[in-house]
């Protein structure tokens, strides 16, 4: 029997008991719908998170801190006092070790580290735009070539000697700009106060406006040159030893470095008494929580499919029962067992195909509807979020998975059909 004949025969057989077949297809459809939706949510959120992570910083940077067992939860014994180790006091009274100029030199000497940039933390008093109103602001230094999610303008050029600044979209109207686009290229003023209590004003040019996001953002981002200017103004009057204390430093490495090369740098820094993390490491927990949730949702889809696969087994077993004589006749006429097996397993695959196709199509329709409703209502605070994404590869994977499950479900009935003895089948009443 030709393959095309097996295919057409399988599809006519599938339609022979229309009600039974459609009920089985509905069961498959429910599983396919669930799986496609959970996958769609997974893909949608993942791509959103990836864009958000881009806001946090580049891939070629390690955030280096002093390895300090006294911070965080640690089972280790307290560390002995080291007169050479400087500490700083942070908000709630926790003290943690800071990096000194000697540490910075040590980090820079680490093989694989191209450049070290100590974090010079600046805390401006206010930011003021063209309308003169003053607003509180937090400043973060641009971490490497961060992939910011921008509403207007461009990324910061860290090599530039000009003072560059990126403001969050929430500051646009407060500072007196008509819209994000209008703010780009305009000057803004940051005020810092030094150790003597003297306030100085510093002007930078807005190069971009950052989209509101889940993580990162909220404050302004400035380039190294601007940061240095503010830091120097803020630390006037401080002793040099205090001035050269940093909470962390950024160690740059080759962007083309492999994971194992990055791990080697991390290990080297660790043996020198530092902890080093990439931006991805720091938000790894966040990502694993999301993938955990998606995993649970997927499990529901798989459970639905498992239930549906028993539907396929049942449907096909009944078909085999009904068609005993027909199978016997075909075998008597010289149809070999392998073809009989193919005929029935293809019928199962077809049921899987139609169920999954309908499921995928309906899931996409639901996805688009849900996106347009949710982005206007419930989740309007998360601009740029596409709740459900359906990359073709994911959809194809879901369909192949379901057809695979259908095939497996079909093997038992197909095997039963294939081993029919023509004599018994033709005698069967």
């Amino acid at each position, binding site marked *: 029997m*030709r393959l095309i*004949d097996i295919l057409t025969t399988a599809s006519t057989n599938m339609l022979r008991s229309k009600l039974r077949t459609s009920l089985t297809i509905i069961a498959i459809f429910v599983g396919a719908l669930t799986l496609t939706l959970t996958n769609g949510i997974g893909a949608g959120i993942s791509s959103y998170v990836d864009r958000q992570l881009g806001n946090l910083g580049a891939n070629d940077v390690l955030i280096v801190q002093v390895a300090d067992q006294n911070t965080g939860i640690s089972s280790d014994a307290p560390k002995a006092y080291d007169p050479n180790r400087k500490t700083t006091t942070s908000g709630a009274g926790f003290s943690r070790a800071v990096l000194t100029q000697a540490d910075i030199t040590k980090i820079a000497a680490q093989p694989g580290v191209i450049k070290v940039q100590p974090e010079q933390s600046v805390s401006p008093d206010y930011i003021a735009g063209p309308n003169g109103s003053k607003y509180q602001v937090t400043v973060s230094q641009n971490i490497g070539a961060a992939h910011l999610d921008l509403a207007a303008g461009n990324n910061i050029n860290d090599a530039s000697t000009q003072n560059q600044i990126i403001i969050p979209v929430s500051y646009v109207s407060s500072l007196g700009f008509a819209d994000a686009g209008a703010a780009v290229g305009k000057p803004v003023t940051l005020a810092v106060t030094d150790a003597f209590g003297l306030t100085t004003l510093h002007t930078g040019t807005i190069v971009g406006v950052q989209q509101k996001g889940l993580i990162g953002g909220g404050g302004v981002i400035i380039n190294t040159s601007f940061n240095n200017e503010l830091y120097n103004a803020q630390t006037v009057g401080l002793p040099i030893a205090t001035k050269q204390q940093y909470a962390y430093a950024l160690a740059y490495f080759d962007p083309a470095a492999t994971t194992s090369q990055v791990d080697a740098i991390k290990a080297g820094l660790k043996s020198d008494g530092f902890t080093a993390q990439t931006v991805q490491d720091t938000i790894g927990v966040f990502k694993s929580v999301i993938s955990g949730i998606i995993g649970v949702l997927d499990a529901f889809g798989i459970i639905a499919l498992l239930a549906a696969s028993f539907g396929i087994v049942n449907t096909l077993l009944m078909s085999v029962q009904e068609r005993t*004589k*027909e199978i*016997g006749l*075909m075998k*008597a*006429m*010289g*149809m070999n067992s392998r073809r009989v097996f193919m005929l029935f397993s293809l019928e199962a695959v077809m049921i899987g195909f139609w169920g999954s196709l309908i499921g995928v199509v309906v899931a996409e329709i639901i996805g688009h509807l849900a996106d347009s409703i949710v982005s206007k209502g419930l989740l309007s605070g998360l601009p740029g979020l596409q709740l459900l994404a359906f990359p073709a590869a994911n959809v194809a994977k879901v369909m192949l998975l379901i057809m695979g499950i259908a095939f497996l479900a079909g093997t038992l009935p197909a095997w039963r059909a294939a081993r029919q003895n023509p004599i018994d089948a033709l005698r069967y009443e």
Partner: protein
Amino acid sequence: MTITTDSAKVKAMAATTNIIASERVTKTYGKGENRFTALDNVSFKVKAGESVAIIGKSGSGKSTLMHLLALMDKPTSGTIMIEGNDAGQLSGSKLDKLRNQTFGFVFQQFFLNGNASVLENVILPLKIAGVGSRARKQRGMEVLRDVELEDKAKNKANDLSGGQKQRAVIARALVNDPQIIFADEPTGNLDSATGKKVEDILFKLNQEKGITLIIVTHDEDLAKRCSRRIQIKDGKLVGDKR
């Protein structure tokens, strides 16, 4: 039609070849105390072009014999020879091919797919053989013409009368141009008038195309029309009349 050349060829062959032969065939079912001998040491030879009736009471073993001859089952001992070759030596796929190309089957219960068209039913053996769609349709119409059913080709098999159904079954048996047609009580489900018509078609095929007929029946009249009657009783061959 090329009946004359066909029958000339068959007659030449008939003089020399046994198309099918049973050599000391025994078939038993079960084991130990439950052992039951359905066929006991049955031997006979059939020449091409013969029409053979296998007669006997129900349970005599005549159906078992037909299944063995049609290679749907294997004998416990003894051999079935097809054109002088031991069928027991054939592999599964060769056996399937032999059945597909050499044999035609006519059953008492028809075994037609009621929801498919008559033509679809008739071309099933060709579909199994892997013949292309156009060629098998053409051949299907040819054999339907032979049994005078060409006007019913597109009808559903369920809509046919009993006699028409059996003619469709004969067309299906004919479609692969077989050398032997096995018929299991071909007139068993028909009234005598339609039964007669079906018999006429079978014997016409036997005479004009030289197709060997092996008919299992307990209908005396049908058996008498055959050129040879093999009688089976309690699994043993008890009579072979020409």
